[in-house]
């Protein structure tokens, strides 16, 4: 067991910080405060990501044959920590580089790889993920959007919801049903300007411009839009989700929020409250526990070990630590959430509501721990 950062990882982090200091505008956090998913943020992503690509920092974890550097999982994760320190100025492109691109490497046709991987690698394209539906979120296999085979390709009808960045995306990684069998799911790569696609923003608790509903009405796509074989989408999406096994470094965001909140309480001469400090100390213990368990998952990934229950354990740890952080903000620093005098805290508070829902609900993670780590029987379902 060696818990110190390697020298090259420290240097890598310093390099990232220097680039972020150079490339982010001085008013970045103020602009960012308008929300992930705004047109301004998406537009910034289109200029920022090509610069990262030019520095070799957009897809360092990709294989060299696809333009990457075969970088290790630790560098990939350090990149994520540093980007999220600033709300991730890559915007929607974190999805491209983390799982859409790698999924296409495994399942895409030669033509799909040729068309999409190069554009993802140079930071010039925005994708959204067409997964969740009103009746299919955590239970993804319940999705109803249907692709019907025709002589020329497929016709897609249905709707998706939640869809982050749908308002500014060029492409959608779309899950559809291609027969009535529960797991007969197929994945299509669909240009968002295809006739029949309509996007509507949904006001929500998260952020301005973040949540959308996307309707597909008689949307025609060619056979070449299908990823893999028809009906094999469950394998594709399972692989894609496994690439997200580490996810956002939420403990890191929580720590930044706690530092900001305590700074504010000190400035307001309210740091003396022992109840508040004890609550903060317990949260730090939880955040650091989540950090250690997340690092354990990264370590397993770096060693190319298969995913196991530690992924779910780390997610639960992060979820609980961030939830406690939210509660701390609400109890001890509610003013900063309404005055918007600290854009980071405001956004942290609003965005973190998804913490126990997105990327596999908290309860689903507990199910997985019970089954994969404790070998408890799976509860019968109707």
């Amino acid at each position, binding site marked *: *067991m060696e*818990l110190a950062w390697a020298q090259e990882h420290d240097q890598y982090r310093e390099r990232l910080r220097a680039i972020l200091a150079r490339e982010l505008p001085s008013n970045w956090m103020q602009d960012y405060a308008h929300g992930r998913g705004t047109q301004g943020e998406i537009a910034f992503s289109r200029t920022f990501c090509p610069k990262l690509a030019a520095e070799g920092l957009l897809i360092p974890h990709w294989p060299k044959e696809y333009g990457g550097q075969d970088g290790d999982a630790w560098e990939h994760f350090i990149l994520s920590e540093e980007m999220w320190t600033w709300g991730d100025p890559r915007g929607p492109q974190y999805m491209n580089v983390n799982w859409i691109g790698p999924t296409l490497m495994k399942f895409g046709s030669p033509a799909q790889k040729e068309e999409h991987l190069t554009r993802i690698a140079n930071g010039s394209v925005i994708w959204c993920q067409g997964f969740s539906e009103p009746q299919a979120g955590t239970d993804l296999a319940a999705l109803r959007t249907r692709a019907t085979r025709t002589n020329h390709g497929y016709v897609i009808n249905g709707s998706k919801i939640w869809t982050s960045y749908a308002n500014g995306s060029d492409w959608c990684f779309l899950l559809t049903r291609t027969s009535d069998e529960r797991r007969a799911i197929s994945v299509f790569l669909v240009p968002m300007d295809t006739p029949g696609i309509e996007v509507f923003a949904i006001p929500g608790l998260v952020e301005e411009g973040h949540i959308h509903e996307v309707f597909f009405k008689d949307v025609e796509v060619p056979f070449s839009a299908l990823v893999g074989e028809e009906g094999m989408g469950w394998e594709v999406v399972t692989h894609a989700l496994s690439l997200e096994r580490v996810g956002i470094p939420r403990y890191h965001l929580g720590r930044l929020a706690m530092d900001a909140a305590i700074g504010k309480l000190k400035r307001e001469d309210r740091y003396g409250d022992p109840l508040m*400090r*004890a609550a903060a100390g317990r949260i730090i*213990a939880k955040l650091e*526990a989540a950090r250690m368990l997340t690092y354990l998952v990264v370590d397993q990934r770096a060693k190319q070990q298969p995913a196991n229950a530690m992924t779910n*354990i780390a997610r*639960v740890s992060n979820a609980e630590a961030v939830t406690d952080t939210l509660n701390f903000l609400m109890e001890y620093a509610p003013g900063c959430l309404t005055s918007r005098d600290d854009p980071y805290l405001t956004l942290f508070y609003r965005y973190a509501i998804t913490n126990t829902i997105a990327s596999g609900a908290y309860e689903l993670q507990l199910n997985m721990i019970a089954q994969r780590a*404790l070998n408890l029987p799976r509860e*019968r379902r109707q």
Partner: protein
Amino acid sequence: MNLEFTEDQAVLVSSVENILDKYAELPTANRRDYHYYARDLDQALVANGFLDAVSSMGSLEAVLVVEAVSKIAPVVEIATSTLVAPHISAEELPRPLAIVSGDLSQAQRYLSVAKAALLDTGDDILLIDIRPGDVEAVDTIFAYPFGRFTTAPDLSKARSLGAAAVGPFRQWRQVALAAEAIGAMRSAVDFTVDYVKQRQMFGHALGLFQAVQHRLAQCHQATCAAQYLTYRAGWSGDPLDAVLAATYAQSHMPKLWFDLHQFNGAMGVTNEHKLHFWTYRLRALQSEMGGANEGALQAAERVWGKVA
């Protein structure tokens, strides 16, 4: 960064587990006791050099030894001797070692079996020799031997370990507490998971019900989290890591106690069931060093500084 055990660490854990296998079972005469102090195991651990883990391998390795020993139902005083003593004294201290605090007329953990006791006076650490007759055993349901002084110890005759020992004493006491806790937490969770797989209720194994599974999953998560914080504290030697490990473990002891006893039901209330050997050990550890709130205050001070 590498979070896997090294080959040496894996061999160490395997070696200590081999010894523990011989002593893990409670003697028949002691199966219904509230605690059982395994003197034969104590001797075996000493004879095989496991109490010298800090000097021979390192503090993380000492954590691994304490964790492993704390998983079995019998107890031996190993955490203070292995993790605290080497950091506060170049000389070998007598053992078993108790740590006494607060009102010295009250019951103290391990005092009934101790050859010496350590006392934190605030600006010094005192070593109090204990002779036969100085202490008496105290009956308790907490799963450790407890004792109290029959007469107040004469602190003027205690040996001073010096002001420089205070900081390391407090830091490594927190690590020792956390290392004992993670062993007991793991065994308490594993014991209960085995039980709910067998116990039938409403025609199904109790462990089939999601209401049970989710809470056991939370207990398992808390145990894993405490475990890796404790490993980090042993590895780094950083006082912040030590207080975080102890605080996290102590914070989660009430949940484990409640959930695990709920799932063991009435069986868990009896001494015929072994659960109490771990859960009541956790209860004893829960309040040491001021408990989780005191640790949390220390953590906050180390992260954000003192109150102006």
